């Protein structure tokens, strides 16, 4: 089953689900689950398609190893999140168009990853941007969609310009050949490099372009934000890979000035990635709405991914590819648990919730596993990828980038723990006393994603072998891995051994716990209150402004939004000034211009 | 002392003062009839006695009278003025001064709880302030016997004899 049939099938399934949900919304939602799962199976089984080329309506495709890897992640996230669609059908304004756009954007992303020439790439890029722009306002706010679209269009316009410029120089659109000529001209290479990668930066949400992420994720319908943060952000990583892997960046910039051994153009982007880690972490620690919090964590993790891809070496590149997979699963699982809670309690604000663990234990366990992976703590997958990235940075000696990486990973302990303590643990508010746990259909994707994080944390061999293949196909030496022992230049990690030791320690502490005298179960309100009698659980739950002392340190921080706001006001004033000067009906202005022209003529001595 | 006399002369000219007393230096106590209290306090506050230091009640059980004492204090000349009046002891009623000195709210609650004086106009003065689950007459009244209440409420320790010498000082 070669892949042009796959793309056709997916587009056709989008239209079909539109028709089905026209007749019955619930059925339409279930059809999205069915079709996305089928396309996942087709893609997974069609691994041998790597390498063959085909064309469809004069758009030609080429199945590359990295394309297959990215689309596998994308379809996985889409299919897992689709399980939640049936429960949001009545909440969304236009459910049938939602189903259609959901599957259509999926088809477009797969098409993008298999594009052979730049025009197909750009077409599918625009299709994805348009379809997701229409889905975002189905949630709460139109403003989010407007901001999302404007920033995405900045990226796509810049990339379009780069594509046209490259076509004018090289004469071909084919991805592999188009950028070859840049190797010899460093100046144009720098220019093309920066314009082409902007689309990637806007999509990953790197520092100046990260404004849309909290808005879009915060306000998109609960069942689309996992896809937005887990899936669509990864398209930006693909563009970043193209602009460093296919475009011979290191060869072109080999002559230019290097900072700490890295060409300054690439180092500049890595600094942007580092800034977005720090900004993402600091803003995530502050948030009260969990969805915005996870959105900012996607900004931070996007920074990791960009840094990893830009390094294009054996260890860091493998780390960032694996981090794309781990981050996609973990943040999708986190978003799904929050959606499950929002489905029952109608709110995602931490200060309004508390003690959800007593009502929804499964979502708690899934959330716990996904944040352990997000924070990069050993037994989970996230640790392996962060370990690789940090080992790579250490071996290259980039201490400023490493500072941001460590700030991000330890800061992630803070912002992942805030919802854990404020939302799941602590006192249960009486008004949520009788909410039902999440339904079985909701539990399936959550459990699958969580078990994937655990599985790839202990046996990263399967993931790293495919990444090794990708690295060889690109031409950099692959990550050295033999049976779950990852060896890098100056560090060895054997995840089986670490997991076994962790299990051994856990068993010993469990035995100590069981040997000792039993403990008596007491309610949550029977707790130390300096001997005062308390009767109101809400008052006794510590949830809002969780890190108040730390947040006070950067209370009035400069923010991109304010800067853009001021910039907008300034341009408006400029417009008013120009209007009053040139387009006003007042006679005095015309007299002014007559005299000005007269004096000019007099001074200039124009020979009429 | 002349400033005290001038204040007294000034007050005497305006109000019908039943008696005056100088309990301590920089202190002057004036007795008034029930109905003049509010006007005098408002006047005193207007001429600089901005702080209500204390509102308390004294139980003259022999005369069958509760005596309300308002102590106001002037920060400029440092003089306390004790404005005193007598209330009938059987059903002690009086108007609140919360509109004049908002701080009086807790004093009135205290006086109500420990003496049983009713203050109309201050609706929270009926809530208890210090005593929890109190089930007897207001305890500061002279006709309340704390010893009897304590013996009946809190079981005491029985000793075989009052003095150790009688017991023979056993080890």
């Amino acid at each position, binding site marked *: 089953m070669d892949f042009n049939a796959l793309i056709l099938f997916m587009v056709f399934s989008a239209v079909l689900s539109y028709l089905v949900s026209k007749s019955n919304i619930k059925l339409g939602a279930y059809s999205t689950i069915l079709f996305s799962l089928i396309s996942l199976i087709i893609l997974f089984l069609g691994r041998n398609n790597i390498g063959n080329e085909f064309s469809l309506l004069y758009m030609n495709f080429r199945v590359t190893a990295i394309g297959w890897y990215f689309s596998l992640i994308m379809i996985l996230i889409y299919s897992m999140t689709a399980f939640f669609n049936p429960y949001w059908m009545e909440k969304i304004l236009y459910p049938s168009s939602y189903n259609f756009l959901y599957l259509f954007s999926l088809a477009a992303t797969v098409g993008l990853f298999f594009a052979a020439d730049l025009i197909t790439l750009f077409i599918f890029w625009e299709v994805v941007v348009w379809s997701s722009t229409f889905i975002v306002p189905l949630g709460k706010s139109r403003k989010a969609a407007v901001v999302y679209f404007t920033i995405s269009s900045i990226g796509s316009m810049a990339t379009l310009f780069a594509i046209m410029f490259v076509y004018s120089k090289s004469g071909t659109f084919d991805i592999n050949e188009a950028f070859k000529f840049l190797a010899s001209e460093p100046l144009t290479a720098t220019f093309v490099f920066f314009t082409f990668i902007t689309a990637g930066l806007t999509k990953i949400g790197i520092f100046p372009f990260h404004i849309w992420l909290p808005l879009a994720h915060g306000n998109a319908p609960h069942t689309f934000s996992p896809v937005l943060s887990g899936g669509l952000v990864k398209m930006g990583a693909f563009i970043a890979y193209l602009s460093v892997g296919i475009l011979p960046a290191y060869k072109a910039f080999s002559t230019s000035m290097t900072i700490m051994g890295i060409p300054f153009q690439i180092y500049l982007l890595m600094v942007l990635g580092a800034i977005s880690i720090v900004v993402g972490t600091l803003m995530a620690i502050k948030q009260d709405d969990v969805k915005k919090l996870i959105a900012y964590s996607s900004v931070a993790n996007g920074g990791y991914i960009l840094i990893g891809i830009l390094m294009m070496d054996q260890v860091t590149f493998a780390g960032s590819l694996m981090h794309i997979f781990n981050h996609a699963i973990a943040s999708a699982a986190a978003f799904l648990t929050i959606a499950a809670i929002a489905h029952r309690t109608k709110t995602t604000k931490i200060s309004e919730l508390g003690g959800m663990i007593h009502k929804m234990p499964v979502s708690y366990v899934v959330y716990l596993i996904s944040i352990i992976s997000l924070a990069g703590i050993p037994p989970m997958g996230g640790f392996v990828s962060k370990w690789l990235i940090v080992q790579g940075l250490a071996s290259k000696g980039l201490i400023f980038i490493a500072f941001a990486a460590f700030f991000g990973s330890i800061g992630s302990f803070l912002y992942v723990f805030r919802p854990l303590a404020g939302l799941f643990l602590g006192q249960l508010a009486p008004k949520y006393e009788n909410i039902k746990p999440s339904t079985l259909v909701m539990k399936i994707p959550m459990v699958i994603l969580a078990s994937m994080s655990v599985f790839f944390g202990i046996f990263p061999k399967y993931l790293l072998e495919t990444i090794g293949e990708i690295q060889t196909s690109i031409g950099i030496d692959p990550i050295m891995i033999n049976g779950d022992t990852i060896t890098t230049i100056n560090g060895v990690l054997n995840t089986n051994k670490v997991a076994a030791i962790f299990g051994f320690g856990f068993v010993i502490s469990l035995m100590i716990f069981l040997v000792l005298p039993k403990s008596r179960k007491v309610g949550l309100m029977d707790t130390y209150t300096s*001997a005062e009698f308390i009767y109101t659980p809400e008052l006794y739950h510590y949830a809002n402004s969780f890190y108040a002392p730390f947040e006070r340190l950067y209370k009035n921080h400069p923010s991109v939004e304010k800067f853009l706001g001021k910039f907008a006001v300034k341009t408006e004033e400029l417009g008013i000034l120009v209007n009053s000067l040139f387009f006003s009906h007042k006679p005095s202005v015309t007299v002014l211009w007559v005299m000005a022209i007269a004096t000019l003529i007099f001074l200039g001595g124009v020979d009429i | 002392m002349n400033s005290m006399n001038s204040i007294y002369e000034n007050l005497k000219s305006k109000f019908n003062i039943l008696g005056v007393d100088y309990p301590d230096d920089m202190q002057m106590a004036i007795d008034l009839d029930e109905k003049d209290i509010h006007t005098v306090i408002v006047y005193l506050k207007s001429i600089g006695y901005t702080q209500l230091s204390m509102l308390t009640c004294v139980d003259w059980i022999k005369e069958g009278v509760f005596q309300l004492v308002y102590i106001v204090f002037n920060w400029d000349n440092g003089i306390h003025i004790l404005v005193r009046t007598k209330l009938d002891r059987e059903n002690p009623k009086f108007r609140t001064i919360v509109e004049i000195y908002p701080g009086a709210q807790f004093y009135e609650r205290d006086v109500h709880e420990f003496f049983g004086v009713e203050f109309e106009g201050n609706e929270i003065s009926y809530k208890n302030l210090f005593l929890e689950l109190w089930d007897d007459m207001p305890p500061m009244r002279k006709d309340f016997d704390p010893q009897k209440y304590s013996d009946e409420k809190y079981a005491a320790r029985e000793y075989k004899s009052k003095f150790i010498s009688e017991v023979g000082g056993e080890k």
Partner: protein
Amino acid sequence: MKIISNNSKTDKEDMRKIWEKIGDYFRANSIWMKWYCTGCGAIELPPTMTSRFDMERLGMGPMATPRQADVLLITGYLSSKTLRRIIYSYEQMQDPKYVVGFGSCTINGGIYYDSYATMKQLDNYLPVDLYIAGCMPRPEAVMNGFDTLISMIKKGEANGWKHYKENYDWYSRNQLHSLGEVYVKDEFHE
């Protein structure tokens, strides 16, 4: 001054199991103190802790919450309101727990014997393992008292907590008679 300990029995044979004996040895040599600063006795404890008397020699040290503490020191007179909070705090402590009453106010009401607000005998409401007489006992007396408590625990005599569990209804009857009800709602914690 003879220290009255309310359940001093004749030394009948020791029927504690070996495991309890070891446990009692540990519990005797490391007693964590949740002193509830009621009344005027609390000021006697800092000198007992600091360099002159150094209570840590006996393995004793202050702990912040009743969950972690072993001994509840009642250091002074107890008004009915404080007694309610002390009973609540005592019930939050983990077994085996001990209570030490400081000063004559806990023994027989002391100088507040005729007050309408203060209780007169602590062990009507809580199982007191040890009283330390004095108004207030000086650190020497406090250290001597702690020594006696340690030897009581070693010998397994300090089981006021068992006594509290076994005849809980007698204690709660006393408490309700004197206090009306223990768990009250007040204006500030509705």
